[in-house]
């Protein structure tokens, strides 16, 4: 129980640190008028380390935290990050344990698709973002995600890593028997 509490505390501190770095520094490091998304990288890393269940949960938490500081509709980031956490975790689990360059590839693809998902869902709820500029933004986010995912996975393993198997991962057919 105590271990679990420490993990939650470390995870919350990691999300807070990523949030402050994102809005304070990373958001200003623009390339082709787009910035990386450190919180998204954190969600991807946690999902790869911990699986879809905890990936979705921490995705939701990180998204809510980011939403509190943005001017876009509240809950939009939480929804997208929770989905990304779940899907990345599920992909990671289906590969037994993504190692080598696979996390980099998964992070790049996840970053690219998450940006599109954000723009599409955002348009559905009325942020009116023209989709023409999204591919460039998605490429920049994908690049940042690919570069940062390995060190962030180390941090995620330290902060929220556990030996307990992910509940959804255990429930997937043909796994962990």
């Amino acid at each position: 129980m105590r271990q679990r509490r420490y993990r939650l505390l470390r995870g919350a501190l990691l999300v807070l640190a990523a949030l402050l770095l994102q809005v304070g520094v990373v958001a200003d490091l623009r390339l082709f008028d787009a910035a990386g998304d450190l919180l998204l990288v954190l969600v991807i890393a946690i999902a790869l380390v911990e699986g879809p269940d905890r990936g979705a949960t921490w995705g939701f938490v990180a998204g809510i935290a980011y939403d509190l500081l943005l001017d876009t509709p509240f809950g939009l980031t939480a929804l997208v990050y929770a989905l990304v956490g779940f899907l990345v975790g599920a992909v990671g689990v289906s590969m037994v344990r993504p190692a080598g360059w696979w996390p980099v590839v998964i992070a790049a693809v996840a970053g690219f698709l998450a940006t599109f998902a954000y723009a599409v869902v955002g348009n559905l709820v009325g942020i009116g973002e023209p989709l023409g500029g999204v591919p460039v933004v998605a490429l920049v986010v994908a690049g940042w995600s690919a570069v940062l995912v390995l060190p962030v996975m180390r941090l995620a393993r330290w902060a929220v890593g556990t030996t307990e198997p992910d509940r959804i991962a255990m429930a997937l057919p043909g796994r962990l028997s």
Partner: protein
Amino acid sequence: MALSRPRPRNTGSRARLTILLLASITLLTFGVRDVPVVRDVREGVGTVLDPVVGVVQDIGRPFANAWDGVTGYGELEEENERLRAELDEARSGAVSESDATRQLAELSRAVELPYLGDVPTVAATVVSGPRSNFSHAIEIDKGTDDGLAVNMPVVTGGGLVGRISRATGSNATVELITDPEFRVGVRVADTGALGTAEGHGRDEPLAVDTGLDPDDEVAAGAGLVTSGVDRSAYPAGIPVAEVIETRSSSGGLALELVAEPLVDVDTLSYVSVLQWEGGG
């Protein structure tokens, strides 16, 4: 990898995912409706975290400046050239404009219309650009403690930048003119025709719905200023944009103007907030 732990039922995990998605969608519904409790929580968190974000920005500024230097050097040179040419042009126009401005101020006072030059302003520094790729807002270092309030217009010497969308004691968020949700009533400076300009995203021109007939002509280069019509959120006469082309809209029944904002909102360092709470 073998585990002795018994496999838990799948339903609990699915239930958690379903709950998370439903919670997100519920929050999104509140967010889209901009319910007061969400706004209050955001303002509260902003009040607590903005000073910390400021410290992080100060620490990261040298790194951000170095990044800008590396990635934006070519653009900076081009912009310098362009600005030098514009400065020469502006100097020549300034003399005749000062006389016209004086006459406008006198006329406005004579007919008791609010004159832009009479509105008190608060100068502010831009402390950060958009906080995400789909945000169209910047942060400034002045807030309610300095007399700012939500909906006050934000300008530079070049023209309209946006409006205050959120304000805490020491900081404020400025919704930029390029935000797809931004609307401002405008007047074509040459003809006096009225319209509503709306943002279309970063680096995209504004679209201006007018009541003009598609056969009417509006010259490219015509200036647009805030209309300041009754209950307008902006005082009359703030330069907004320059027409770059016209096209028919509403099935060919009306004329739509495409206009380039006069202010480059990507490169702002300082702005002025007009302490105007006229309408909106």
